[in-house]
């Protein structure tokens, strides 16, 4: 796992957007071989989306051959409700970029048969050959997607009851009326995320500091589902300074040194590739 630390949410967003941009452009997606990208909602990824939108407007990047899968959606909330994740994704990202609507996948929380909807979602991901890069955020309790504390780390896309914490935290979007907050969501599972060839997680703000510490400084634990990332061969967490508040100084220093080494390895690999000595494979993480 790599942990990249940047000054603030904006520079974190810029870093991730640059990273994704490079990954997509290196992948050189085509209609028959699209880049499959997993996407989150929430406030953490907004700076990343903003930076990606700017790159697309500047024609440095295109989503014409990108297929997206979103992590989750509320159950029973109308699709055009201001708090639905359909609305969020359209407002914050899809309306501003060049992705064809047919290449956007979001779980349907109003499907008649919710279980079938979840199974079909997994199936669709498989049909695209799996997710190339899953971008995620985390909750204060360390949840990734709606995999609340206690979720199976082997879970797949399914119906999930929201934790009381999450309902309370979301009440502000529903006129502080707790009874109006959806109780259930459809979400990809921890294993669905881990199946992606690469996972990138954005963690910003002091409120996420404890979750970050639990996820990377302690053992794999279903009470902090992000910790499952420790089992992933190619994971990247990008955090801002505030989010590192609960980490040991030693941890921070260690990851900062990894970043330097990784940069060096990538540079060397790129040179080899330029000289034709390196095959078309991806640059693996050194850790």
């Amino acid at each position, binding site marked *: 796992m790599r942990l990249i630390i940047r000054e603030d949410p904006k520079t974190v967003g810029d870093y991730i957007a640059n990273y994704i941009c490079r990954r997509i452009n290196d992948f050189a997606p085509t209609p028959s071989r699209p880049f499959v990208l997993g996407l989150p909602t929430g406030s953490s990824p907004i700076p990343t989306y903003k930076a990606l939108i700017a790159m697309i407007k500047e024609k440095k990047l295109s989503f014409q051959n990108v297929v997206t899968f979103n992590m989750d959606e509320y159950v029973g909330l*109308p699709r055009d409700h201001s708090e639905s994740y359909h609305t969020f994704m359209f407002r914050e990202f*899809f309306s501003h970029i060049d992705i064809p*609507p047919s290449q*956007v996948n979001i779980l349907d929380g109003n499907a008649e048969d919710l279980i079938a909807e979840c199974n079909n979602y997994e199936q669709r991901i498989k049909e695209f050959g799996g997710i190339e890069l899953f971008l995620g955020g985390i909750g204060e309790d360390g949840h990734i997607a709606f995999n609340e504390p206690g979720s199976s780390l082997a879970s797949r896309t399914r119906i999930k009851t929201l934790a009381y914490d999450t309902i309370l935290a979301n009440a502000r979007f529903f006129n502080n009326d707790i009874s109006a907050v959806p109780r259930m969501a459809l979400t990809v599972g921890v294993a669905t995320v881990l199946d992606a060839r690469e996972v990138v997680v954005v963690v910003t703000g002091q409120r996420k500091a404890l979750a970050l510490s639990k996820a990377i400084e302690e053992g794999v634990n279903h009470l902090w589902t992000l910790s499952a990332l420790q089992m992933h061969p190619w994971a990247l967490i990008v955090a801002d300074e505030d989010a590192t508040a609960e980490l040991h100084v030693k941890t921070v220093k260690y990851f900062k040194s990894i970043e330097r080494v990784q940069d060096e390895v990538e540079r060397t690999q790129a040179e080899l590739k330029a000289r034709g000595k390196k095959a078309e494979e991806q640059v693996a993480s050194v850790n």
Partner: protein
Amino acid sequence: MTSPNGLVCFTNCLLPQEDGSLIKKDLWVDETCGLILDAQKTFYNRRDRPSTVIDLGGNILSPGLLDIQINGAYGFDFSIYEDNDEAYHQGMQMIAERIVETGVTSILPTIITQEKAKYPKLLNLLKPFSTPTSATLLGWHAEGPFIDYDKRGAHRPGYLLPAVDGFKSFEEAYGSENLVDTEDWVMTGDQNPAVRLITAAPEIPGVMDALDELTKKGIAFSIGHSAAHTEIATQAVLRGARLITHLFNAMPQLHHRDPSIIGLLGASPHLSAPIINDDSRYPDTPSTSGLEAVTPNETPKSDSPDSSQSSPTRNGSPLKDNRIRLNIPVRKESRPSLHLDKGQVADMAFDRPFYGLIVDGIHVHPNSVRLAYSSHPEGCILITDAQKILDPHLKDGVHEWRDGKRFVKDGDRLFIEGTNTLAGSVVTLDTCVRNFSRFTGCSLGEAIKCATYNPAKCLGIEDTKGTLRSGAHADLVVMDKQGVILSTWIKGKKVWPGVEVIST
């Protein structure tokens, strides 16, 4: 310009909202059916996105302006019919096509007091009308003949009438075929909203008695050219009057002991008489009366998940219902006359009426404009009351009017020759928007609201005109941040100026 898939996205623009704010947001329109789209539904349900994107360079993309009081323009006078239907139609079309240069995309042709015999013909000619490249003529606004002699202004005294037989007198004057229920009056298959508005003085015998019947038939009533005192004016509003014609003009001036018509803007919750609780006066039969009771603060509810499956444009136009909906006063009972909610107002017996303001800086002093707007911003409607010589290209001087009289145009001033009687105006509505923003100090977005959403709401047509709601007609105007009109769009297609703007 034609978009390959018929969808156009306007981007990098500020959209005026119904609360007067301006927000940076894209607008998607379907230029094939000429309607504004729900972008999100188009994306997720129709799985489509505009293949044409138009960058508006940070300018304002407003609903087209709506003028509910305009007597004529470019030399054609809606009040003059010379026994030639064809010529009259040509005049209507000419104005509809040319007025778009002033940012106006809907007008309500206004007929000044006529010889009684001429009304049936004129009003019949003024059915809703538009061409694919023109503004929409929404119907008619009959100003007179049931007005007060003392407040007649430029109206010919000999033609004024009382309405001794109530609604029957209105039928006799205007022609009963013009006062039928809205759905019987409009041509079938016309997707334009149909509007009929009458300005009359409620103190004229019989006028008050006709109000119920007019309202029932979907005909809006405006108080104007009237000397009504407070009590009569209030009674008229309680019985359905929803507008005041050219506020401050042709009515008693504000007197503190009897604020009369103008005083309605400050109608007190204490003195506004409680509404007569008689449901039989307002039968709840929208299908036959052409009226639908709408609670004052009703907002469109978000669709259920099921209905979100249908695209707003799938059947061409979801708004086949072109009946106008007029608010019927509903007594709210949520807040008593003595209450503890700071900043809130006790319940009123009625909604205060809308009011038209001629914002040429001449008919109403800027201070008066601000005074009216401050007391009742939600009711403010900008009007031109323009005469036939309205033409932004016209020079100052003496011009022919009618009945052998002549106008003198001096800038935005217009007099009857040899008098100091103001004879309507020659100001354009886009100028009024800019003037209004300057006179009141309000934002451009709030001024735009007074020339788009407010008049549309007054006439009950805010689902199709004067807003950016999905399903509304894509009649749009692009203006810069100084309120200068840059381009005008009808049903999603640019009609003025002829040259293409930046597109990618």
